[in-house]
Structures are given as C-alpha cells and as structure tokens.
C-alpha cells in the first residue's frame, strides 16, 4: 500500500525496478500452464504413445470430463463457496435420467430435461441453504453430499433391485441425444469424444463470463468481500445461488455425457471426485478463500490431471502409487502458485 497519490507521475522512489519477466506472472493460471507444459514434455519423452494422436484423444477425454466440473467449481470457488456435493451430483443426474428412461420408458430427451430441472433445483437448494442459514458451504454441501449419496443408493436399489441402472440403449431418443453428448468426431483417423468440445466450450463461456461480463465482476466481488459487494448493490444472494446452480448444471452435463456414453450408471459413482475438482481448480490458481482464480486455469488444472493419470498408465508405472503422486503434485502445485502469486503481488505494488 504505497501512497502514490502524492507523487504520481514520477517512479516511486521506494520501489526497486520491477523486472520485465515479472509482468508475465500476474495471471492466476501461469503456474498451471508451466505445470501442464512440464507434465506434457515429461510423458512425451518418457513414453511412446503419449504424444500420438490416439494418446491425445485418450488423455483429452479424461481431462474433459474432469475439466467441465473443475471450471464450474472454480467459478464457485472464486465466488467464495465450496461444493462437496458436486461429485455425487454427476451420478444423481445420470441416475435420474436413466431411471426415467428405462423404468418409466420416457423419451431420453424428456428424461434429460427432467434431470436438468432436478439438478438445478438441488443447486438452488444448496445455495439457498448456504445464504439463508449463514453456515459455511463446506458443512451445508457436506450434508447434501451425504444425502444425495444415500438417495442414489436407496432409490436405485428400491427401483431396480440392483446397484446399477442399465439398458439405456433401448430407450427412445437414445440415438439423437447420444449424438449431442456422447458421439465421436474424427481427426486424422482417430476418434475424439465430443465431450472435449463441450469442455472447451464450457471453459470459453465461463472465462468470458468471468472476465467480460457484469456477472463475472460480481463473482470476483462476492468472493473477495461479500458484505462490501452487497453494500454497493451487487445481488449477492442471487449471484451465489446462480453459482451453485452452475455447478449443478455442469454436474448434469457430465452425468448426461456419462449415461449416454456408457448407457449405464452405478449408484456409487462420483463419490470422491469432488476433491479432484477442487484440486484441479486450486492447481489452476484459484484461492480457497475466494475472490481470485480463473476458469482457464481450472481447465488447465484438469488437463494436468488427465495427462498425469493417463500418462502413468502409458509409462506402465504401478498404479498403486498414483495417489501418492497426486498428493505430491498437489502440494508442489500450490506451493509454486503461492510463490508466483506473492511475487506478482510484490510486482503490482
């Protein structure tokens, strides 16, 4: 906090010269970009197939599903909230779609619509509870995480007598819906899943919203200082609820892609994934405390995740150690991000 007001045009004599490179490190996602480059180069060198077009299709697909969620979760985190129920939500939405289509025989499109409505309702409920009660979203969404987990299992078993719902392929409208959510497209003779396009699209939209719209401005504001934002007229409650609904929407999108691609869904799917979303967002430069981060960063965080996860398989490493690798990577990533941010802050001053 320098008092530049009194000596504005001249350089502040109390500042050392900022280095040119320092200007580069102001963006939240710079750390993630470096990390992604590193992981990419590493596996490209160490393994044969990683860099092939078929390889790229594989890790991009893995990154895409995680990425859609990570971007949504990042927006929510920038807005100062958490959603631990995001992981199970991907299963809940898929289950709703599948149950409606296979058990009630509804058209797939209709089932998708109903499950979208369900997702948005749950998201709104999460947001409303958080805003209404003033409780931390960690607790509230931990509650809905548990509740959804119970519902997924209980209802699936009640209705189907087993723990999975399958048989989507025979439902009316499966083909056309599948085309939108789960088809593949060809590049150089290799098929890429359409989910990659959804991921890129979602990231672009999210990034545009964050950087270029009023609503995006509000997200940063309510995450950084919610009381102050309310005071200058930002509709805090509405914005936060919208963010929870965005996360729920993303969960619906991922759930729909899953159910249409695999035509079946298991009741315990998605549990534990919420951490991966948060990790991807944090690697991408989001602050746990809100008010800072980027959608592109989260997408890159997911990319790192996807590359590492599949890269380990390409390298033929023992997968027993994957979690260890993940833990170390997370710590390293946040440490680097932290260092870069501190440095950036110093430069800004």
């Amino acid at each position: 906090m320098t008092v530049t007001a009194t000596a504005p045009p001249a350089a502040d004599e109390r500042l050392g010269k900022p280095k040119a490179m320092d200007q580069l490190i102001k963006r939240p996602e710079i750390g993630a970009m470096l990390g992604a480059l590193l992981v990419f180069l590493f596996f490209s060198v160490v393994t044969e197939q990683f860099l092939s077009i078929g390889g790229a299709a594989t890790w991009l697909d893995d990154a895409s599903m995680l990425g859609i969620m990570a971007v949504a979760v990042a927006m929510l985190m920038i807005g100062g909230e958490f959603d631990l129920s995001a992981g199970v939500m991907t299963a809940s939405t898929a289950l709703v779609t599948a149950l409606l289509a296979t058990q009630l025989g509804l058209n797939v499109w209709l089932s998708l619509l109903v499950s979208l409505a369900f997702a948005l309702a749950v998201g709104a409920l999460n947001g409303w509870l958080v805003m209404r009660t003033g409780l931390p979203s960690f607790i509230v969404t931990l509650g809905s995480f548990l509740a959804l987990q119970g519902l997924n299992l209980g209802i699936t078993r009640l209705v189907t007598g087993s723990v999975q719902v399958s048989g989507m392929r025979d439902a009316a409208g499966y083909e056309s819906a599948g085309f939108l959510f789960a088809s593949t497209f060809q590049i150089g003779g290799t098929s890429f899943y359409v989910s990659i396009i959804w991921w890129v699209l979602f990231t672009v939209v999210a990034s545009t919203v964050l950087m270029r719209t009023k609503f995006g401005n509000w997200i940063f504001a309510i995450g950084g200082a919610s009381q102050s934002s309310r005071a200058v007229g930002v509709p805090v409650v509405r914005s936060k609820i919208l963010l929870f609904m965005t996360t729920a929407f993303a969960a619906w999108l991922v759930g729909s892609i899953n159910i249409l691609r695999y035509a079946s869904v298991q009741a315990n799917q998605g549990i534990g994934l919420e951490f991966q979303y948060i990790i991807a967002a944090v690697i991408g430069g989001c602050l746990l405390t809100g008010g800072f981060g980027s959608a592109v960063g989260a997408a890159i965080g997911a990319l790192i995740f996807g590359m590492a996860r599949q890269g380990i398989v390409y390298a033929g490493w023992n997968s027993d150690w994957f979690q260890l690798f993940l833990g170390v990577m997370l710590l390293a990533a946040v440490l680097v991000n932290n260092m870069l941010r501190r440095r950036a802050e110093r430069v800004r001053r």
Partner: protein
Amino acid sequence: MTSLIETENIGKTYGSVIALSEVSTVVNAGEVTCVLGDNGAGKSTLIKILAGVHQHDQGSFRVEGEEIRFSSPREALDRGIATVYQDLAVVPLMSVWRNFFLGSEPTTKLGFLDRKKGKEITKKALSDMGIDLRDVEQPVGTLSGGERQCVAIARAVHFGAKVLILDEPTAALGVKQAGVVLKYVAQARDRGLGVVLITHNPHHAYPVGNRFLLLKRGRALGSYEKSEIDINELTKQMAGGAELEALEHELRGVEA
C-alpha cells in the same frame, strides 16, 4: 423544497439490543448533515437504515417526500443514495476500475463489459479528485487507506448520487489525507449533493457541516444548525458535557 431525506422518530433494535430510538433528522441538497457521537451510539445503525442495509422498526423514513422502506442497498442506490462505509466497502483483490464500477458496470451493446471505457472513466474520475494512479488495473488492496477512501467517494459521486453518506471516512487517515477527503466532501456538497458525514472528530465535522446530529446510546442528544453552536460547544457536547472538563483538567494536570 422537500428534503432529500427525512427521518422522523426512527428506531431499530437488534434482538434485545435497542440500537436506535426516536431519532429525527433531515438531509437537504447542498448541505452536510454531520452525525456525531460515542462508540456504539448508533451512528452506523442510522446510516445503514438510510442506505438500505437494515430496515427500521419504528418511525418514518422519507426520501424526497415519499415514505419508503428499502429492502436492499440496490434500491437505495437506485434512489440516488450512495454510501461509503466505515470498513471501506472495496474488494481488495479486485482492480481499481472494477471496484469503481462494481454494481454499475458499463457494458457494450453486446452486453459485455466495456473495459476500455471503464478504465478511462475511472482514470478520469480519480484524476478529477487529484489522484493519479499509475495503473487502474492494480488491485485496490495495494492502495493506501486514503486512496481507497477516495476511490469509494469518487465512485459515489460519479454515479450521480443525490445523497452521499460517509461513515467515519477520516478515522484511519493522516492529517493530510483527511484534509483531502474533507475537500471532496465540500466539493460534493457544492455540486448540490446532500451529504451525511459521520465522524468522531469535531475538527473535521465543524468546517464542512451545516447541521449536527448528536447521538448518545441510541437516542438523539440534540440537533443543531451550524449557527446555533460553535466548535467548542460541539466538542463539549460530543464528549458528554461536564465529564470532559474534568478529564481535560486531569490531562492538563499530568501534563504540567
């Protein structure tokens, strides 16, 4: 001419705490109404009601003659009542220009943020107030307290406020910075805005104020026009009259 703001026997309780009761005052265009009083006297509570952060429980609150009850700060802003809070009401991690426009963002025809325009206007509005920033993209958190205060005031003035409410804008400021802020208060007043100024410092209040509302423990202790009171009397009233004299005496005693 109707007053911009008028309260009549307004009251407010938080749970079992009666924070404000039976307070009446007016704010006119081109005048400064100062609200003075001890810690916990209810000053912030009063202006939070005017600003739409809280609602009053008793009495009546009129804006330009119309009885009103704001349900959110947004509504107050839409009626031209802009507030600069004690805790500054800026978002430290956000850039200066985004803070400046927060809640009233300029958009292009396509509905996107007009960043170029935003930056230009911010730069201009701030330099009109004598603050020349190297970079309006820098986070507000990197500004000094006085500069932040000025950003908030500039914002309120820029968005065509009719009433400007300032909660202890000078408390954390140095003598010079406080002087700068007071200058802008006076400027805003001269542009025809009604100003509500809260402060603990009679030396800050008296030069710019037209009307002085003294609160004590939630009640109005008195309301004076400038002509009715001089600065010594004001100081004395603020400190609770007789008590202060004893204190001053004591301080002198040890000083000697």
